[in-house]
């Protein structure tokens, strides 16, 4: 039996120590907001925070997560930045299918907490570990910039044209 600190509360997990954190969260604790996408730290769908650092839960064994503060998408709204990121995602209509978005939000929140005014290059670096197959990258960038207090994408209603950029 392992005890994990998740979203500020202790949770008991009865799984072999080498089980990836992802499956402990999803299968045993019912925290299914953290997604499976590749199992090889290639897509970012499983991004959680370990002691504030964005981490791929599909390759972190539960033994390595003991004594660390684990935050998942279910808990990130308790953080002021996390909440702002979630709000920006909704306001700008970022999600399409939404499956990758918990991971995107965890990556974006970690970036903004560490670097409140990220440049385009900073955003590229922080976010390129997270794949979105629906192709919402331009809106993700715009949402990050909105949280950072930079300009919003423009919608020119009259001409029916919209412009999404970072």
């Amino acid at each position, binding site marked *: 039996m392992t005890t994990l600190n998740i979203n500020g509360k202790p949770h008991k997990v009865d799984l072999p120590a080498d089980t990836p954190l992802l499956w402990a969260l999803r299968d045993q604790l019912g925290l299914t907001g953290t997604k499976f996408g590749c199992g090889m730290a290639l897509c970012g769908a499983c991004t959680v925070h370990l002691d504030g650092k964005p981490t791929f839960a599909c390759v972190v064994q539960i033994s390595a997560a003991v004594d660390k503060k684990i935050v998942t998408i279910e808990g990130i709204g308790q953080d002021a930045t996390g909440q702002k990121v979630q709000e920006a995602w909704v306001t700008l209509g970022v999600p*399409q*299918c*939404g499956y990758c978005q918990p991971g995107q939000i965890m990556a974006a929140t970690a970036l903004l907490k560490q670097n409140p005014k990220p440049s385009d290059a900073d*955003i590229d670096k922080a976010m390129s570990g997270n794949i979105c197959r629906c*192709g*919402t990258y331009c809106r*993700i960038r715009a949402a990050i910039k909105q949280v950072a207090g930079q300009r919003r994408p423009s919608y020119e209603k009259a001409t029916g*044209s*919209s412009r999404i*950029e970072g």
Partner: protein
Amino acid sequence: MKKPLDRPELRADDDSLFIANISRRAFLKDLALTGFVLAAGFSSLAWAEETAAPAQPEKYGADAMPHGWIDDPLVFVAIANDGTVTIICHRSEMGQGIRTSLPMVVADELEADWQKVRVEQAPGDEVRYGNQDTDGSRSMRHFFMPMRRVGAAARAMLEMAAAAQWRVPVQEVRAELHHVVHNATGRTLGYGQLAKAAAKLPVPAREALRLKKPAEFRYISKGQTGIYDGQDIVTGQAQYGFDTHLKDMLYAVVARPPVFGGKVISYNAKDALKVPGVVKVVELPSSPPPADFNPLGGIAVIARNTWAAIQGRKALKIDWSKGPHGSYDSVAYKAELEAAARKPGKVVRNNGDADAALKDADKRVEAEYYAPHLAHATMEPPAATARIIKGNCEIWACTQSPQACRERVAKWLKLPVDNVTVHVTLLGGGFGRKSIPDYVIEAALISKAMNGKPVKLVWTREDDLHHAYFHTVSVERLEAGLDDEGKPVAWLHRTVAPSISSTFAPDTKHQMPAELGMGVINVPFVIANLRVENPEAEAHTRIGWFRSVSNIPHAFAIQSFVAELAAAAERDHKDFLLDLIGPARRIDPRTLGDIWNQGESPETYPVDTGRLRRVIETVAREANWGRTLPKGSGLGLATHYSFVTYVAVVAEVAVNEDGELSIPRIDVAVDCGPQVNPERIRSQIEGACIMGVSLATLGEISFKDGAVMQDNFHDYQLTRMDSAPHEIRVHLLPSTEFDTPLGGVGEPGVPPIAPALCNAIFAATGQRIRQLPIRDQLRKS
């Protein structure tokens, strides 16, 4: 934390008055008891009409789809005492926003307050809801009008109920934002107060309904309605197929034959069973050809959690046979397709005499284009949960085709269809992969092998890439002749690609009308001598539907080739393209050899070159076509008509000294007719741009010794943020008249991206890309 879900999460209130889960028969009984006579407009079951009448004129659109459409408000709307309006969405949500947009249409005609609307997902039941195959970019095209009538009929019933209560003529009342108002006195009654009485009224005749005028729309065309599931998505509460959690549920993965058509010769599960958490190992039967929607067979590992199942599968020792496709090799196959394209093939469209005109042409241009297999790679791989209790199978699945799931599971389990329930979860991407229920059948078979226990079957990324129903692979060979003024006088196109039909009839060697109608025969070009041929191609894997399907290779080849011709004619690409399309006219698609026309009426949906010209002119203007760019940068243009929607793209690229490609900006002009939810249309087009960039620059599934060579995202790469277009500008062509027919949205943005990029690369570097993906073709070695 979520509780295990022991009951299907149907959230209909017990006091929902207007429908929700009451059977049609029960409702009829209620009507009989209350003494109402059925109104004529009540029989909205298109499927019944379809099967009843012996001789019919040709059917198109939703009328031609299995089980057609339903517009019965008693099926789609429930109003509770507290005024909460529940609207059923019967199409699958996979990112296109349909769970927002279709209920929004109902809510608008119903004059409902969107804040008081709850959306509930319909289970698979096409007799009740109408067609549920969420594919072909047609949910809104086919259900906009039925859903308007649903809302309008429910609104009329509420108005009648209010008028009856006030004892005033119904003409004196009007519905307004969740209330009915008496015009003269200003009295109001809320929808919740009226629901019970309204439910007892007959549904008005379809012909008697008053639909709103576009100026009266509250939500439709405004683009102000947020995504219904948005909050659930960003807080991790949204439920996908991968997320189903039932009490005492087991978890399974399957080892499938690496080569299509292969089988298990023998296997040893000893080590797999030693993995902690593994419960059982069972063999699943393979299916004889055709592939159809059948599972591939193999060895299933059932465990107490997903990780244990995956580890157990790794420990299996399996000896596979390869079957008839064991030598499928993408390099050799490409050469086969090229050889076929260099010889005459089946003529599928012929105007004039292309051979003679080619011979006489002043200048002759020819080119071959190659587009490889692709896998959908939905971020959520296929997943389904099944349990069987007393001969009833219940499924939870991320599926685009819940009715097909029901029918196939019933067949495999030898149960009546009525004994199979399919709950549709959110889909973490679909793109055509989840139209095919092979994985759902697997889940049902494994549950059966576990005596009906709930089992969640999941696919890993490797499973997904190895066992997709792949996008076809094609060689497109084009030849054209120009006269001494640079005007095209001859066009010969040979398109060679294994057909989706081969998945259902393995001997198929030609593309079917639907594939040929995806932009290869129905080119609306003003060329007197035009021939399209379709030489044979044999399939060696399961070919399926991938977002925009055969439009991808066809648009890539044709739109690249037109740019090549413009260069040969030493003309501006845009001017050349517009001349090739010719004057604005409405062309009967049958005269272009297209008998399919996306399943739509050739009268309602002709090929409108005026609209095609307009998207080209719009995108050229908005992108400032012809603007001066620094060295190494270029603009590329492409257009494509698909899913009865007109799209044109200008891509701006930059190629640096090392040959690295970046995409500062893409402009897209779209004419999809009236825009029901412009905000979601924009997001679909933005997404289509990026999927188009991804397939053009990186996408390739290849085979060796019969098996797929790519395993995961390290070798099947997808576009990431750092290589995505930095800016996407979407230009929606104005269309305020809601009596013009709707076009598709989900798919038509994809096809013109690859040729626009390649044309831009040519403008930037002088290098012509004729083989996808671009990958490192631009690198300086």
